[in-house]
Structure formats: C-alpha cells, structure tokens
C-alpha cells in the first residue's frame, strides 16, 4: 500500500469511528481547547500505530487502547485551568442543542462525579458506560477480569456516594 493510500484508509477509519476519540476527550478534558489538543494528539498516536494495526483486534478495541493510553500518558497543564474554573463555568462549554434545565443539572452532576474520579477510574467507568464486556475492558487495560469487576464495583460505590446527595437535591 502506498503512503497516500495508507493515509486515505486511515482517515476513512478515523472519520467512521471518531466518536470513540470524542468520548475519550470528553471524559478527560472539560475545556474545549484542551479537548481539541487531546483530539489531535490521539489522531497523531493513532497514525503512528496504524501501520502495525493489522486488524487482528477490533478497530474499536485498537482505538480505545490508543486513545486511553494517550489520554492517561499525555501531560497537559489542565489542572491549573481546571482549578480556576467552577463547575458552573464548565457547564456552559458543554454543547447542548436544546437547553433543558433538568438535563443541564444532570450534566452538571455528571461532570462533578467524573471530576472526582482518577484517570484510571475514568478509563474503566467509560468503557463500562459504553457497554463493553469485562473481558474487553480487561483486554484494553491489561488487568484481569476479576480485577475489572472489583474496580467497577468500587467505582460504582464511589459514584453512588457522590451522586446520592445530588439526587436528593434534584428531588
């Protein structure tokens, strides 16, 4: 395959499955500029890895691996900016086509809950929310299925603890 053909194949794969990258960026970055930077970094890493991707694994598994590895391993000065912004400031940056108060409230809580998770917890809960099986999560993260189960239960309890007072607030 010639380099232009390879690039063409790559761009078509990326545009078809770009949702995965956007979701990872949405999980790890709150600021639109940071999301944009991470998106580009993931694209760059995917391109570097593309020649070695022979289709043995599913495209989505390969993309999640690269995207999550990049998001966790990349170093961005997000903390300073994040600390300065309040949750309310961040909520205005979330694209909402039809503003809905209840929906905004839920998104605000979703952000707050996500913000309290560690990088590893974010990766695992994201794969869980995306309906991946324990086996797939184990494959992507490199831990055992049992450990995936233990971690998911722990994150669920943590989220329950965070979300419970918010649920009461909503009622």
């Amino acid at each position, binding site marked *: 395959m010639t380099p232009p053909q390879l*690039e063409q194949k*790559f*761009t078509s794969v990326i*545009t078809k499955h*770009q*949702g995965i990258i*956007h*979701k990872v960026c*949405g999980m790890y970055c709150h600021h639109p500029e940071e*999301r944009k*930077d991470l*998106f*580009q*970094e993931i*694209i*760059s*890493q*995917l*391109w*570097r*890895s*593309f020649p*070695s*991707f022979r289709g043995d694994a599913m495209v989505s598994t*390969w993309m999640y*691996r*690269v995207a*999550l*590895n*990049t998001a*966790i*391993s*990349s*170093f961005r000065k997000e903390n300073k900016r994040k600390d300065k912004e309040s949750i309310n400031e961040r909520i205005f940056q*979330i*694209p909402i*086509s039809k503003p809905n108060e209840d*929906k905004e409230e*839920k*998104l605000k*809580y*979703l952000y707050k809950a996500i913000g309290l998770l560690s*990088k*590893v*917890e974010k*990766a695992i809960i994201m794969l869980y*929310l995306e309906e991946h099986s324990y086996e797939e999560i184990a*494959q*992507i*993260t*490199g*831990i055992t299925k049992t*450990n995936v189960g*233990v971690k998911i239960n722990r994150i*669920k309890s943590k*989220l*329950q603890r965070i*979300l419970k007072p*918010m*649920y009461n607030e909503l009622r």
Partner: protein
Amino acid sequence: MNLDELKTTWTDYTSELVHENEVAEAQVHIMLSQQPESIISKINKSLLFEFSLLFLCSVIFLFVINQYPENHFLFDFSLMMLGVCVVFSGFFIYQYKAINSLDYGAENLSESLKKSISSLNSFIKIYFYSNAILAPIGFFVGMLFSYNIFQVESEGENESSTPTIMQVDEYLIFFILAAVLVFVFFFFFTKIYIHKLYGVHLKSLKECLAELESA
C-alpha cells in the same frame, strides 16, 4: 440520580459532543500534517538540543586534535573527551529510538504505562548525567585547555611571560575548585529543572500504574 440515569446522561452528552465536534476527512488530513505538543515532542526537542550541543563539542575537540597534534596534553584530552561525546551521543540516539518506538496500539494500558515509565526514567537519568556531570567537566576542560594553549604560546614568544600571578599547581587547584562549584550548581539546578519538566509527569504515570495493578 442513580447509575442508570448516569448511563443515560453519559449517552446523551457524548452523542451531542460527537455531533457538535464531528470532523471531516479533510480535517483529519490537516491534523496529520501538524505536530501536536505532547510529552514525546517535548522529549524529542530536549534530545535534539543535547545532541546538537554534543555535536558542537565534538567539532571543537576535533579542531583541537587537528590544530595541536604535537601537544600531547591537548591531543590526549581532546581524544578522551571526543570519546565521551560519542558515548553520550549513542545514549541519546538509543533514547530517541526507544521513546519514539512506543506504540500505544500494540500494548494494553498497563504494559504501555510500564514502557512509558521505563523510557522516561532512563531519559531522565541520561539527561541528568549529561547536564550535571558533562557541564562541569566541559567547564574544567575548557579552562584547562585555554590555560594550556596560553602557556604554550607564551613560552613560544617569551619564557618570562608565563603567568606569574599563580603557579601551575595553584591554577589547577583553582580550576578544580571552580569545576566543583559548577558541579554543585548544575547538580541541584538540573535536579530541580528535570523534576519541574518531567518529574510530575513521571510521578503521575507511576500512580496510575500502581492504581491499575492494585487489587
């Protein structure tokens, strides 16, 4: 809000996020032509800078070897320093290859973190030694060379014009003391500088790996 609601909210949020930020193939092509600011590009820049510095030093030592073949002190010392430069250049090339061969798609998260930590660790070591040790050595050698050249040239013109303020041994002690001071300064400066540049990131990677592997 319970976990099921969280799932629904997540799905709503991500579907809107994907819809709002959708990119076309042409945009992906543009992104491929640009170099994003990542930790790897930052390390590459540092390696390139160090490598250029070593190359420049090697050129200077080659010049000295070529210019003073009959001065045994300068010739032997330059040859030795050239060897040091070649060895460190080899380390930098190896490091560059190791860091740029990291393939996030071929490894799972745990393996990838281990490789990143190991690469960053060895890069930090090389970077530290090259700055904290080579800099004072270079400083010492530079002073010794200029003194030696000055002395040889003075002897050639007029033997009585050899520096008289200090004796040779005193000069040597002064050079060594200055080199020690430079070493102390560079040791702590490099340590703080490296920690600021990569230490926080390395710590974060180690924490992620420890958390991932904990049962």
